[in-house]
């Protein structure tokens, strides 16, 4: 039984660390900016929101407004996007038995991007959707892409082997990527807007965007968490998983759909932010092992914290200019990834 205790302690430490990282990132990201808000104020403001208490008098109204109208929704959105991409990445890496897979591998992000870019290009605005025309179109395009990819992969190979899925993803990604390039080539007025969206951003989205991503995040994450053990089994190979008693076809479909929903929703609200879905699960696995029962929640926590921090960097590093967050994730993510890879290869 001492073994069990040892393992419990190991994961208890992991969760404590991840939660601490998330909270620290969140408070820092809310606190730092063109106007600095003291952490104590942030705690009071958020506490008041959560427990429906009146805000203490000593907190300045401007700070209240900055936190609750601008920083908090922005940081939370970054958190949800980071969490979605990280857990989807962790699940895809396990399912595809490839530690270098990322959530965009199935072409879902390309689908979401086509939806969004087309909305910008054609200047579509559905009256009752208003500002949310873009994320709604984008999510619809993402879901359509998932269905097409899965339908196509199933037509090619009924059991949908991992290789088939990866190849199908590549086909769809390049095909949809060509559409995006086409639109970029044809556009003149909306170029800045389109490029800005493609590089990814969580700024100026407000609470409503959080309302868009949260249901997808909750459903997608729950679906994946419910399949954590199955992911463990499937990461040993699909036949192996089947022999261990996993209903592989059903579980694989659940993971693919859940991961795609998460990815599609994240891309729809913030653009295609790269590297989070690749680096965070990889890092989490290196730190705490590959057991998906813990890897998935730990990826959520670290992914959220990581994207909050990168967003902070993107808006403060050459303030007042705001850099696209995707540029920062790649600038930080790629070297970190290179370091991990070098350390790993040298060790083995």
């Amino acid at each position: 039984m001492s073994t069990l205790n040892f393992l419990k302690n190991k994961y208890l430490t992991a969760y404590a660390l991840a939660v601490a990282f998330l909270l620290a990132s969140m408070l820092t990201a809310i606190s730092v900016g063109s106007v600095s808000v003291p952490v104590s104020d942030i705690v009071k403001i958020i506490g008041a929101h959560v427990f429906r208490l009146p805000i203490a008098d000593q907190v300045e109204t401007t700070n209240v407004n900055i936190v609750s109208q601008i920083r908090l929704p922005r940081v939370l959105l970054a958190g949800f996007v980071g969490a979605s991409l990280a857990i989807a990445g962790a699940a895809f890496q396990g399912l595809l038995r490839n530690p270098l897979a990322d959530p965009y591998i199935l072409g879902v992000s390309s689908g979401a991007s086509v939806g969004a870019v087309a909305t910008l290009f054609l200047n579509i605005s559905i009256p009752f959707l208003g500002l949310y025309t873009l994320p709604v179109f984008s999510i619809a395009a993402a879901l359509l892409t998932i269905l097409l990819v899965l339908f196509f992969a199933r037509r090619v190979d009924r059991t949908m082997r991992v290789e088939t899925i990866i190849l199908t993803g590549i086909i769809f990604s390049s095909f949809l990527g060509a559409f995006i390039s086409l639109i970029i080539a044809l556009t003149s007025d909306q170029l800045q807007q389109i490029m800005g969206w493609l590089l990814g951003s969580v700024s100026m989205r407000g609470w409503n965007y959080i309302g868009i991503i949260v249901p997808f995040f909750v459903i997608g994450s729950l679906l994946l968490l419910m399949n954590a053990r199955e992911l463990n089994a499937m990461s040993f190979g699909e036949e192996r998983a089947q022999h261990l008693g996993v209903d592989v076809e059903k579980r694989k479909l659940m993971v693919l759909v859940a991961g795609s929903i998460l990815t599609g929703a994240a891309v729809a609200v913030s653009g295609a932010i790269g590297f989070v879905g690749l680096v965070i699960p990889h890092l989490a696995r290196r730190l705490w092992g590959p057991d998906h029962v813990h890897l998935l929640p730990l990826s959520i926590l670290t992914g959220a914290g990581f994207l909050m921090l990168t967003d902070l960097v993107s808006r403060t590093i050459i303030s007042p200019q705001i850099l696209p967050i995707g540029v920062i994730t790649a600038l930080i993510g790629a070297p970190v990834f290179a370091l991990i890879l070098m350390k790993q290869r040298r060790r083995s």
Partner: protein
Amino acid sequence: MLKLENVSGGYGGEPVIQDISFSVAQGNFFGILGPNGSGKTTLLKMISGLIPNSSGSIQLNNRNIDLFSRKALAQKMAVLPQLTAHAFSYTVRETVALGRYAHHEGFFQTWTSDDERVLQTVMEQTNITGFQHQTIQELSGGEQQRVFLAQALAQEPDLLLLDEPTNHLDLAYQKDLLDLLKKGTKHDGLIVVSIFHDLNLASLYCDRLLLLEKGKERAIHSPDGVLKEHLIQDVYKTNVRKYPHPVVAKPQMHLLPDALEMHNKPIKIDSSMLSVKTDRIALTSPIPLRTLSSGVCGAGIGWNNQFVNRHVPDDYYCADPADEMQAYLETNGFDVSRTVGMMTAVDLKNVAHSHSENKGVSLFTVVTAGTENATDSARPVAQTLAQGTINIWLFVNGCLTDQAFIQAIMTATEAKAQALKELDIHDKWTGTIATGTSTDSILVAATQQGRSVPYAGAATELGQLIGQSVFTETKKAIINDQGK
């Protein structure tokens, strides 16, 4: 109980497997053999439920396997895969614990004390408890295979399926793994069904074997009934020889390489290869000869190309003559692993040898003889060993069957006894005519090329050569020795 009835099926189109029926009872080890592409793996995948069978039925414990849910089936049946690379570094413990998946219900399964007990038991059985916190990637191939066996055993299955489980494992691990499985069948009543590439391993461990050819049953029987030369040659399209295992009562198949050097260069053993010195008579053959012999070392059945009859003094005594003889051979430049060594106290210059030939078979006979120790084997008397030995070497230029070797020894022994009778040599203790001495040795060595000689009884050509030459040379050697 696993039962297959008229099972056919495969990957669609032409069925790979056609009309296979067999059943395996509790506690039995069942082997599936067949050349590449004969459908072994397809059949195994059909049993494990990965590929549906198009007709017939596969039943486990009297229930059709398609009626089981994946989980229910995994509680009854486990599969040990071939060794493959793994992308992630799970610990040994995590890997084995996955074997309990099928026994968990609901989404948020808890690890029970029952799970922990099974986990500990299987880790101990497979001897991996010691590295349970290491990652599987840190382990050697043999250790990894034990981890996956533990994972399969953690499912607590009634039936274990294996696809060439010993692939990529070195000799000791192959044996350990199969021993462990065999123990599982004997102690826990486990049913093991395994594909084998290695016919000899299959023969050693399986109770029954199925031989597949192009998806159809070619034979299904005990190892002795399946491992027949003509059957294996026909199915695998290659030459094999069947030979009994030296220790276990199971047949073994030996491959016959086509490019045998010995076919290139015809060899004839004769007196030109013999060297007689005061301390030893030696014969060195350019190729290994198949030998059946008694002696101090290199005795029994084997392949040897050096033959030594060493002179020892009358008062030679050694607690371990074999050891001492080996040392002697080594110091004199003989390769002990390819040498048959004998000893004698008689003067070696009294050796008698001759070459004789009869219808394409030729024989070179070498005899040294001393008769101080002559005995009548029909009237055995306990006596201290005096010196005096008859050592007979027979080199046959021909291809002998095992039976011919044995008959050659019979014929030679009879001729020797006749020689002693003719010279009227008596057993000193009983006073009767002697049949030999109490320390005689004999060697029959054959080139195994040229004419094939199935028999060597007294009436056959070789038998006649042996009878005559042994009779003559033994007499000559005894007379030489008596005249000293």
